[in-house]
């Protein structure tokens, strides 16, 4: 049984706020009541370095008329403040009188996609310190050149209620546990860092599934990799991307371009291309929120729309966009449950959740053997995309040269760049080893961060631009 919203509003106030939101002629109004607690701990030099708790609450009212939205919020729960926010938001419409009334509010059935056995607020700080000590302590033993270890644990609880004039009455409790560490190795004047973090919609049981010792070993291994590897050569070449982390390519190359707001405005490289071939027939991509306990898992989105699996590309053909309520209505598309907002202070916009390329038929080892001269990219950093062109990029933190079909020398410091539609058409092999990457990815868009996940099988792109110093 998830813990209850600490400062709920009742249906009466929600209905009044919605009515006030519709009063000037809006065609949709919504109230969003959010309460969140963030607890954070860092552990360095054998002790707790910093420790904090941040509590934030607010009630936002949104009014929509045509393509325009008004948003105002208050941070007290007082009815007069909520209604004042509603009147401010309502002013986006100028008819001066209501044009529609609200449907009766009906409960939305919410899934159970988060792993909550022990509520996060019941976890003693001593227990969190003990976990951080394990992360830090183990890393300190793993390599003689370890110069600094910074372990961190962040957990958050986010409650919201959402009520809207389309009859939505929904609420959710969303936990997130994030943990991991960064390790710095030093050899004379040379310094190299490795990171391993995860974020999961789970309680602290997550550390029984992914132990602090495993995280520490990965972070040290990646730092050691960077210390020992050569600079990556620069040029255009075939690239094999390892299962899991290569999801960053899918996220940047395709995912953003399929968010419906960009497509509605005709500014995405994928605008107007539904039912067209946009990728090799080996490529099928979905965006879902159903895989239990994953960072991108959601019971409902922030508009109260139930979340399932949205088919984006099926065997190379574009099948769908990620929609919020506004895009779904304006584009006459199904509501995909992709409307997310960072907090009550921002507007919901289409965002990704768990973005996955589906596994294919090929044997991952055979894919590597098929490359005469190229790159095997195994671990990745962050990336970005210009959605109008479809040009994307991302950092590769662990890679190896492929020479004559064999993995040879480790190389570091590679950046890969490409064009989304071109890259997808150049996917020439897709392995059967699909997996979701274990990471703590936060996607940034329009100044809003959203926790996301992604995954892929091993796959090959026949040609990508690789940047390095070598």
């Amino acid at each position: 049984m998830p813990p209850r919203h600490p400062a709920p509003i009742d249906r009466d106030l929600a209905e009044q706020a919605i009515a006030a939101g519709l009063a000037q002629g809006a065609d949709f109004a919504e109230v969003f009541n959010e309460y969140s607690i963030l607890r954070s701990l860092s552990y360095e030099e054998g002790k707790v370095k910093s420790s904090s708790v941040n509590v934030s609450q607010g009630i936002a009212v949104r009014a929509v008329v045509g393509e325009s939205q008004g948003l105002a919020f208050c941070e007290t729960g007082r009815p007069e403040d909520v209604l004042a926010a509603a009147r401010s938001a309502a002013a986006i419409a100028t008819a001066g009188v209501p044009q529609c009334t609200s449907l009766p509010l009906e409960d939305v059935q919410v899934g159970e996609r988060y792993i909550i056995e022990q509520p996060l607020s019941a976890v003693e700080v001593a227990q969190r310190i003990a976990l951080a000590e394990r992360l830090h302590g183990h890393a300190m033993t793993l390599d003689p050149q370890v110069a600094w270890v910074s372990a961190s644990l962040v957990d958050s609880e986010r409650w919201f209620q959402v009520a809207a004039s389309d009859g939505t009455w929904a609420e959710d409790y969303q936990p997130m546990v994030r943990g991991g560490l960064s390790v710095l190795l030093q050899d004379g004047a040379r310094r190299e860092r490795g990171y391993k973090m995860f974020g999961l919609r789970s309680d602290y049981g997550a550390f029984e599934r992914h132990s602090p010792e495993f995280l520490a070993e990965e972070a040290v291994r990646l730092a050691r990799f960077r210390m020992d590897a050569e600079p990556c050569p620069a040029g255009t070449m075939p690239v094999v991307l390892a299962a899991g982390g290569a999801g960053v390519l899918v996220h940047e190359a395709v995912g953003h371009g399929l968010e419906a707001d960009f497509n509605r405005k005709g500014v995405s490289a994928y605008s107007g291309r539904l039912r067209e071939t946009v990728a090799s027939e080996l490529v099928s991509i979905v965006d879902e929120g159903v895989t239990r306990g994953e960072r991108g898992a959601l019971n409902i989105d922030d508009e109260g729309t139930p979340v399932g699996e949205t088919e984006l590309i099926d065997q190379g053909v574009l099948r769908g966009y990620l929609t919020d309520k506004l895009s779904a209505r304006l584009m006459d598309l199904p509501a995909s449950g992709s409307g997310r907002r960072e907090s009550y202070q921002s507007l919901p916009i289409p965002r990704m959740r768990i973005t996955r390329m589906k596994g294919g038929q090929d044997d991952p080892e055979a894919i590597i053997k098929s490359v005469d001269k190229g790159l095997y990219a195994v671990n990745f950093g962050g990336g970005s995309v210009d959605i109008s062109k479809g040009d994307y990029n991302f950092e590769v933190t662990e890679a190896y040269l492929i020479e004559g079909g064999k993995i040879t020398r480790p190389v570091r410091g590679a950046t890969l760049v490409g064009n989304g539609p071109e890259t997808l058409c150049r996917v020439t092999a897709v392995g059967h080893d699909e997996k979701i990457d274990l990471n703590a990815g936060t996607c940034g868009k329009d100044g809003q961060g959203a926790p996301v996940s992604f995954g892929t099988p091993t796959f090959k792109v026949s040609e990508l631009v690789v940047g390095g110093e070598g």
Partner: protein
Amino acid sequence: MTPMDLAPDNRDQLLDAVLAPVRAAGAAGRAVLSCADDWEVSLASGNVEAVEASRSQGISLRVFFDDGRSASASCNDLSDDALARLAADCVALAAAGAADQWNGLPDPSACGLSPVDGLSDDLEGYDRDQALATALEADRIARADKRIIATHRGGVGCHLGYWQMRSTDGIDLSSGGSRYQLGVLAVAQDGDERQTGWDMTSGRHHRNLRGPEELAATAIRRATESFGWKQAPSGPCPIIFDNRLAAEFVGLVGSLASGQAVYRSSTCWGDSMGEQVCASGVTIIDDPGIPGGSGSRPCDGEGVRSQRLTVVENGVLQTWMTDSYAARRLGVALTGHSGGTSNLSLQPGELDRAAMLAELGTGLLVTGLHGWGVDTASGQWSRGAQGFWVENGEIAYPVQEVTLAGRMQDMFRGIRAIGNDPHPEGRTRSPSLLIDGLTLGGS
């Protein structure tokens, strides 16, 4: 409306209510009350997409026991119950922390407000309808160009903020400021090719913002100057960063010279105090006192009085930028840099664009950078890039889909020429810079 107008009448009681339980627990603490008024309108292709307007408030608290055990907390519910919980939770977290001899409030004699003018224009003469009309005008001018198919993510915004800081050792400081912005982003199409270009103006005084004609013209130019692009050849090549990208590069100095990074051994400049970290002729200054400067401030996040600081002089690293913890730990001067740099700038040189290109000879003039492959500990610098290939001092063709890679230590020492064209806005400023030592990944 002045920043002070945002402050609640009971602000003294609020701050005292938070600090009283801290004192009662035998600890020291610093509470900060923040208040803001925000208004933002976003536009796309002539339509108002969203209007967002609200007031917000919050209190943050930092608690220290004598032995340095410490914690932080914040909340935005200012009711008695919530503030009591804030203080109790923070004290409890601090009690569970670890002793640390370098942790504590800063020396009160270092705290105070340095005089600085122009932080706020008090919204004097600012009219939201007029501001929106200006943003719509920039949008209209951009779309009037036949090559532009759409605009999005543009708009106008205004922020007014006030803060008050109070510590258990008697420090009591307050200040505030205004900030405005206006921008336009255009999408251009030529056959099958699409490009984007944007421009934005921001500052503390709305009358100083650049006008819609200039914004639209720059956005159009940037959106249309890369059609017919090619990749450039892979290999080492000298580059010029345009002034915006040079400013972003210079911003790395905030981390490279940070006292916090030094004691963690996480800066590649960590062993280089007093050494030549930049090419000679490079001087980098952090100045919190610039009248109306975007980064200007009377004190830092701990209440330490602001001061102008020469970080790099003629290429030689002069000082770390410290908060009270780093200053104590490293045994160096407290510079008032809790929270980062203020107005950081690389001093301009003499060369105009033509002279810079002539000095470059053959290489890449960089007008766009993408991605995150930058690490101040190792110095790794690896990013996606776009711009113009230059041959013998003349622009030859637009370039996209290439990468640049190198090490920041080499890049700062490899600044071969300094332009005369610092961007007039922003917290961090630099003129264009000609830099050796990077490798291009392309065709």
